[in-house]
């Protein structure tokens, strides 16, 4: 696979940027988007990634917040320098299970970058789910980038059986998104490790 952004290579530890697929719904087209995003993040020099699929997570639903932490997910969030959320827009909002999963951590997110990829069957590309997630990101201590991923008409963008991308323009669009995310991740990592509150 081609390697994007050789200038993003870091002299020390690689950046870890996991991708969270935020819906468990059967027949979800967001899975194709998440696979595509994961492949593009994995192609960046000096970046490691991993997919976290809310469908595969066994979070309790008779409690909420940090009381229901999953050790493996929390460890990954602690290691992360940035996150990518892939979220479909359901009734103009985000899937409740995505919020439930995100709320299971807090200190793990502080001063880390996040980019949001919205997915929709309609023409707006998840703009409303992205807008609705922004205040949540802020309260969790995450720092949002100003590039978004927007996948409108997702049923026309990927082959429904193979998941192959049918619209090549998304490669370049996502590169702009990941360029900004990596920049923010580097800056915030430097800040977390070196810039102290006086």
């Amino acid at each position: 696979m081609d390697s994007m952004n050789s200038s993003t290579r870091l002299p020390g530890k690689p950046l870890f940027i996991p991708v969270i697929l935020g819906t468990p719904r059967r027949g979800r087209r967001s899975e194709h988007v998440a696979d595509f995003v994961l492949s593009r993040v994995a192609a960046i020099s000096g970046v490691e990634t991993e997919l976290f699929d809310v469908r595969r997570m066994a979070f309790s639903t008779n409690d909420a917040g940090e009381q229901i932490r999953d050790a493996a997910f929390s460890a990954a969030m602690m290691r992360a320098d940035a996150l990518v959320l892939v979220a479909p827009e359901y009734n103009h909002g985000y899937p409740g299970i995505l919020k439930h999963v995100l709320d299971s951590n807090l200190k793990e997110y502080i001063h880390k970058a996040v980019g949001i990829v919205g997915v929709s069957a309609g023409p707006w590309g998840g703009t409303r789910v992205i807008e609705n997630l922004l205040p949540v990101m802020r309260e969790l201590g995450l720092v949002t980038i100003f590039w978004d991923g927007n996948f409108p008409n997702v049923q026309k963008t990927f082959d429904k059986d193979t998941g192959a991308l049918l619209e090549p323009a998304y490669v370049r669009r996502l590169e702009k998104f990941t360029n900004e995310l990596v920049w923010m991740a580097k800056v915030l990592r430097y800040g977390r490790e070196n810039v102290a509150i006086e």
Partner: protein
Amino acid sequence: MAERKKLKCPGCGGEMNFHAEKVDYSQALADPESMDPEFGGALEEFHTCPRCKLTVERPATD
């Protein structure tokens, strides 16, 4: 202003960097003594270890 003493990382023993503070309202509900009356919740500090990347949350010290 006097420089704060660096927290020692419980994971690797390295010096941690204090980089964030946040008010935790639910913590103050669970433990009313932790509430800072000027903020209406428990004031928490966040420290990150440059060596092993561990982040620690603890009650604010000032």
